[in-house]
């Protein structure tokens, strides 16, 4: 197998990995992102609440608090450059009953300490005016105006695409299986697709970050316990909550929220179930019941009849506790293994923090790693928007179809996704070669019929554009084929 040489190899193509790759592309460095799955953003980056938290919640003084606040600010410009939908919704933490109302003051003080702008304590009436569907038992709330909603799918893909446009290489379906450490320095990793040598390896492996550390012989005490969170998405035609509503947090975490998505669905979740299997994203009967009950406490009119999708994500909860009490993000150049940078325990608010984490890594490289970072004058910060047919008006649609008839054929009826958009995704800088990859990029199959209509059509387009048989089209990579054989073929 061949050996490839890079300046920096990033292990894991979640939002943290791709954001770092894009940030490093500003410099004259050869960068590769190594990902075991068939696409970028297959883990927790795209199965979360898709909220850019304001930063009111982390323990003041923690890395989390700093990354969250800085990341929130950085995302505004990023979203513009990357052409990613960002909704400035703000967020409400809503108290139910007198006891929770008393806790609002503590939350307010913490937000002040974290220097979060615009935070206010709201009365019951203010909360209900902002979101009339709230429970009548609402007793007040904390208003955090800088919280926002983002399209997490598109954000990961757009960041990766922009990185690829700027020369970052993506090795998908490539799993790190072995590490070559010589004289205390990590020199290379062995994957199922050959050996990769680099001067720096960045461990952004999400829930598997502890395994990567251990493989390199670093931080044997570091452990990630996976916490699975289940979610529901509601039919936007039936229910349209334009806000982000959190309960008052408890020991267990931020709690089950009710929020809009950038596509106008209402999202409800997550719970937090500790799981042994870090890749187990199944939904459970008990879990679904739990989030229905919890969300009804905030918004009683939520009807299970209007649910159009269920999913689960696994959060990477690390055991790094620098103050001995509170979990924090681990962002470091390894003290024991040369050439290794660890990004561990990046659970919520990891998504919003990702641009700040990337800047922090750049700082570490320059200050502690003695990297001479030379600017890349050719860096293109803007990732052009893809065509989104559903968002166009009648005249724009007409003009588009005249230009390219592929946009004249609807493939996903619920989300009004055209064949042109599917073809664009297949031939984009980080090509979509699986059904789920197309779904993440175009939102095909995310509506009421959940793919029932578009499955055969998208499979046909993938087969045609990639020139592979229908029986080799997969949902999410190797092992996940849709079709077994031709109807009349003998078993």
């Amino acid at each position, binding site marked *: 197998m061949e050996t490839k040489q890079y300046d920096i190899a990033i292990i894991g193509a979640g939002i943290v990995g791709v954001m770092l790759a894009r940030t490093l592309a500003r410099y004259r460095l050869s960068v590769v992102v190594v990902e075991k799955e068939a696409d970028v953003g297959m883990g927790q980056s795209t199965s979360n609440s898709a909220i850019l938290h304001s930063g009111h919640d982390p323990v003041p003084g923690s890395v989390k608090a700093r990354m969250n606040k800085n990341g929130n600010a950085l995302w505004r410009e990023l979203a513009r450059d990357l052409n990613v939908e960002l909704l400035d919704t703000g967020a409400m933490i809503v108290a139910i009953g007198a006891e929770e109302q008393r806790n609002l003051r503590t939350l307010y003080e913490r937000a002040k300490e974290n220097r979060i702008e615009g935070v206010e304590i709201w009365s019951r009436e203010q909360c209900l005016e902002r979101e009339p569907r709230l429970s009548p038992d609402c007793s007040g709330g904390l208003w955090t105006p800088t919280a926002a909603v983002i399209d997490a799918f598109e954000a990961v893909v757009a960041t990766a695409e922009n990185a690829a446009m700027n020369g970052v290489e993506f090795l998908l379906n490539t799993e790190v299986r072995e590490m070559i450490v010589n004289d205390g320095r990590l020199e290379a990793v062995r994957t199922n697709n050959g050996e990769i040598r680099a001067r720096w390896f960045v461990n952004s492996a999400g829930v598997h970050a502890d395994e990567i550390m251990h493989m390199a012989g670093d931080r044997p005490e570091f452990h990630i316990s996976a916490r699975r969170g289940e979610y529901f998405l509601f039919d936007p035609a039936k229910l349209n909550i334009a806000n982000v509503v959190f309960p008052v947090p408890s020991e267990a975490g931020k709690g089950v929220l009710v929020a809009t998505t950038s596509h106008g669905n209402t999202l409800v979740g997550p719970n937090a179930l500790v799981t042994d299997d870090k890749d187990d994203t199944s939904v459970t009967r008990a879990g679904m019941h739990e989030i229905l009950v919890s969300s009804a406490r905030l918004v009683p009119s939520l009807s299970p009849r209007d649910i159009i999708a269920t999913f689960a994500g696994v959060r990477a909860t690390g055991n790094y506790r620098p103050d001995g009490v509170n979990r924090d993000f681990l962002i470091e150049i390894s003290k024991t293994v040369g050439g290794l940078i660890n990004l561990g325990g990046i659970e919520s608010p990891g998504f919003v923090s990702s641009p700040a984490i990337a800047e922090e890594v750049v700082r570490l490289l320059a200050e502690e790693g003695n990297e001479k970072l030379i600017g890349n004058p050719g860096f293109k910060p803007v990732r052009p928007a893809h065509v989104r047919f559903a968002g166009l008006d009648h005249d724009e649609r007409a003009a588009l179809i005249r230009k390219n008839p592929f946009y004249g054929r609807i493939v996903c009826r619920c989300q009004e996704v055209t064949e042109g958009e599917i073809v664009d995704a297949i031939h984009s800088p980080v090509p979509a070669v699986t059904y789920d990859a197309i779904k993440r990029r175009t939102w095909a199959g995310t509506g009421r019929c959940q793919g029932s209509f578009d499955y055969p059509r998208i499979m046909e387009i993938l087969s045609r554009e990639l020139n592979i048989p229908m029986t080799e089209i997969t949902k999410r990579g190797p092992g996940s084929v849709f079709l077994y054989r*031709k*109807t*009349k*073929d*003998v078993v």
Partner: protein
Amino acid sequence: MNSIGTAQARKRMDICLSCPRGCEIHTRTDENNEILDIEGNKCKLGATYVKQEITDPRRVLPTSVRVRNGVRPLAPVWTPTPVPKHLLLDLAAATRDIEVDAPVHVGDVIIENWRGIGVDLVASGEVPVR
């Protein structure tokens, strides 16, 4: 169907297919398949149905065959005359060896008098040339 054999008589239950009601008809038959007694049928059609079921149960087989040069890879076919039940899967297997040329028209006979039992396999849909 659910037959329980005894020395003298056999009991069975059939769900009648003559109408949507689907009566559950219980019968006892002798060794010559003659019906000794019958109950559960709400009309005369039930008795006729069960008699046929006992002596020579038949069903329509809907399936498909491969098409060469068609706009679709398959043409729907069926047996307008019912097939003896025990031969259904044999005929289904036989359709795997067939490939017809487009165009296919409704009523085209794909297999005539299969195995000499008086059953034709006939196209039930159109498949134009690609």
